[in-house]
């Protein structure tokens, strides 16, 4: 089973299939915040499954709490009638290695404020996270935060006299004693500069994405001349380039041509979206981005691709927010503008989105469970995090000629 050959360093390299001899730092505790209960339930399932695979009885019995059916610790995030709140931990966290899972992008969660139902904002979720850390600190052995969608990640640079919210939030967590902050596809990884001394990881979702594509698209083939990866703007080229090079297909990109002679709202206005790349005639297209916000730009690009004669158009984004609802996507799907949208289950997806025929939900829970297992062992994450080997293996299995 072992995919990594044994060598001197293999004691610390995480092995997701076999034994990991390094001692676990402490019993794991998973703390789901409001809004990530369902996600954590799945993570717990995969973690229990993974831990049941540890064969050496001596190892398992040596560490109390290593193998449990339920790693979750109940937390109550109570809200007062004024809308303020407090966190109360319902079970012991003393000596535990805690993983607090927070989905700040879940407005479906509600609480009563002044007698009225209020949907939670990212600020509410983030303050809840801090409350839980405040309630645990001093007792837990180590506190780790898994925040799949990094709060304020798009407020990562200063254009004028404005606040640097993402860096500030990271500093707050670091000062509260959080050892590891795990996020996915951070909009800009350089926000980690705010906390140079802490474990900050921004993880990709490409492997799970490609795997799900094979499952959803029967005639999928990454053959040169038939398939192309497209970046919706110049900022996302790096992400698209990775897909293009690992799949061995050409890359195209859109870029925003701006009028640099004038300034509107502090920025140069966009004149046109220009396309750079080969002809897309008859090709299947994969548009890659970190998130679908309102989705307007994604649809514009899909449309432009169809107009240029593309065969099928797929969109892949780690986070599908669909801030304006999914009506425009339904319409575009019926008009044949695109074929499938792939997004992960790392954040809340509204029920109508999960039912849409064009939407494919990419499951990240198993990966998160493995990650927790690895961090708990203090194992080297690099071969778990780096998807290249796994993707290559997957492509080989599917008979791709790369």
């Amino acid at each position: 089973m072992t995919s990594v050959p044994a060598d001197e360093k293999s004691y610390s390299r995480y092995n997701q299939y076999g034994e990991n001899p390094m001692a676990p730092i402490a019993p794991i505790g998973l703390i789901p915040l409001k809004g990530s209960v369902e996600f954590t339930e799945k993570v717990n399932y995969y973690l229990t499954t993974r831990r049941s695979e540890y064969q050496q009885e001596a190892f398992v019995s040596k560490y109390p709490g290593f193998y449990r059916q339920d790693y979750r610790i109940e937390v109550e995030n109570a809200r007062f009638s004024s809308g303020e709140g407090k966190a109360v931990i319902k079970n012991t966290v003393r000596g535990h290695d805690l993983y607090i899972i927070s989905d700040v992008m879940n407005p479906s969660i509600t609480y009563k404020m002044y007698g009225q139902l209020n949907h939670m904002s990212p600020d509410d979720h983030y303050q809840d996270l801090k409350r839980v850390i405040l309630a645990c600190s001093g007792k837990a052995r180590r506190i780790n935060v898994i925040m799949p969608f990094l709060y304020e990640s798009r407020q990562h640079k200063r254009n004028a006299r404005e606040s640097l919210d993402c860096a500030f939030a990271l500093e707050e967590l670091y000062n509260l004693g959080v050892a590891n902050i795990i996020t996915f596809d951070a909009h800009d990884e350089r926000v980690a500069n705010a906390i140079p001394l802490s474990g900050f990881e921004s993880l990709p979702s490409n492997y799970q994405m490609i795997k799900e594509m094979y499952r959803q698209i029967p005639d999928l083939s990454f053959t040169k001349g038939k398939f192309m990866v497209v970046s919706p703007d110049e900022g996302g080229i790096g992400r698209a380039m990775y897909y293009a090079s690992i799949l061995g297909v050409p890359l195209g990109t859109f870029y925003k041509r701006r009028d640099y002679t004038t300034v509107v709202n502090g920025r140069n206005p966009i004149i046109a979206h220009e396309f750079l790349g080969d002809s897309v005639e008859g090709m299947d297209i994969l548009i890659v981005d970190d998130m679908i916000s309102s989705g307007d730009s994604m649809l514009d690009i899909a449309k432009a691709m169809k107009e240029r004669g593309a065969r099928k158009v797929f969109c892949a984004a780690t986070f599908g927010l669909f801030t304006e609802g999914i009506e425009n996507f339904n319409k575009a799907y019926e008009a044949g503008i695109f074929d499938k949208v792939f997004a992960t289950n790392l954040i809340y997806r509204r029920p109508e989105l999960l039912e849409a025929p064009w939407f494919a939900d990419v499951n990240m829970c198993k990966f998160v469970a493995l990650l927790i297992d690895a961090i708990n062992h203090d194992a080297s994450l690099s071969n778990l995090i780096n998807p290249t080997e796994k993707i290559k293996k997957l492509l080989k299995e599917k008979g791709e000629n790369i």
Partner: protein
Amino acid sequence: MLQLEPYGPIGIIAHNANRDFVRAVSDVLYQKRKKRLDNNANPYVHTPGYCRSDYIIDSELIRFQTGEGKYQIEESIRGHDIFIITDVLSHNETLDIFGYKHVLSPDDHYRDLLRIVSTCSGKARRINVIMPFVYEGRQEKRETSNESMDVAAMLKQLYELGVANLIIFDPHDGRIANAVPLMGIDFPKSAYKIISTLLSTFDTFKLDKDKTIVVSPDESGVNRGIFYSSLLNLPLGIFYRDRDYSRKIDGEHPIKNYEYLGDDISGRDVLIIDDMINSGSTMLRTSKILKVHGARDIYCCATFGLFTDGLDTFDEAYEDGVIKSVLCTNLSYHTPDLLERKWYVNVDMIPYVARIIEAINANESVTDLINSTSRITDFLGQMRIGELFDEDEFEDNKNS
């Protein structure tokens, strides 16, 4: 008055939700300084930026589609003495997150405050925060061991961000200052204003120890009750919660009864004092018991009127003659509905806040202003209340 040199030009920053309040503070400040400028009252009236018609810093709290936000300042604040006025209780602003309706919560306002402070720091000469209702002020102790201590964490955070002065009105528990022993944190009281408003609004209300009594609605507010009763020279009564200590429900010993300790109430006007009216159930329950014991007119006084469960119960109590009036300050947000109620009296704290800003800006000894009991020895010949108030108004009152 105010012969001290200003620390820098004043800049006031508002949140979107409390712009009207802050606008009024800025206007009052302008009027005061204009008068001083016209009279050439002190050597500093010609300091650059001393007298301006608008002290509010042009800036914007922006929300993205996701509900996250940022703060942006449109003019320079370099070298300014910045005062941020935050009302975490305002719930008059809504936003749309993915089609879900969200009313800006205390968490949102607190995050906005952090956004403002972090943007100003490094540029402003000094940052001061006026947060009349202290965010999470009631989460000041651990009931069980595994609980978050929110207010302490908030204070530490503001201190670490370099906030020089924090002004909090009538905190639920002043011991929260232990979290930041080195910070300039002051707790002015609204008592003077509430009492003077009470006296000027109701002719029948008298500061006479045979006619009026001060009542604290529960044992945790005893100190507040003692403060009022000793300053006004009125007798004190308190209620305490008689609990069943043999069992626990929801982590608390259940309340068996409300017991009263103190002088006879019958035929007396009653002043019920609390720091805040939350849903109002405590106030109304206390009023009803007092009425049964023969109290005359009942006045409910609290610095902050939240009315989280609406106004219907108070309407009923007023119509049934249980309460005469409710007095709260305009330091926290009030719904337009509340202001229309016959039983409600709004206590205007705007001149106060402007006065505090002036005092801090000139590095006047705020402690002396807020705490001295000797300073004010006479008000309408009857009162002694040690606290900061507006001198101009005091002069006016004296003359009239």
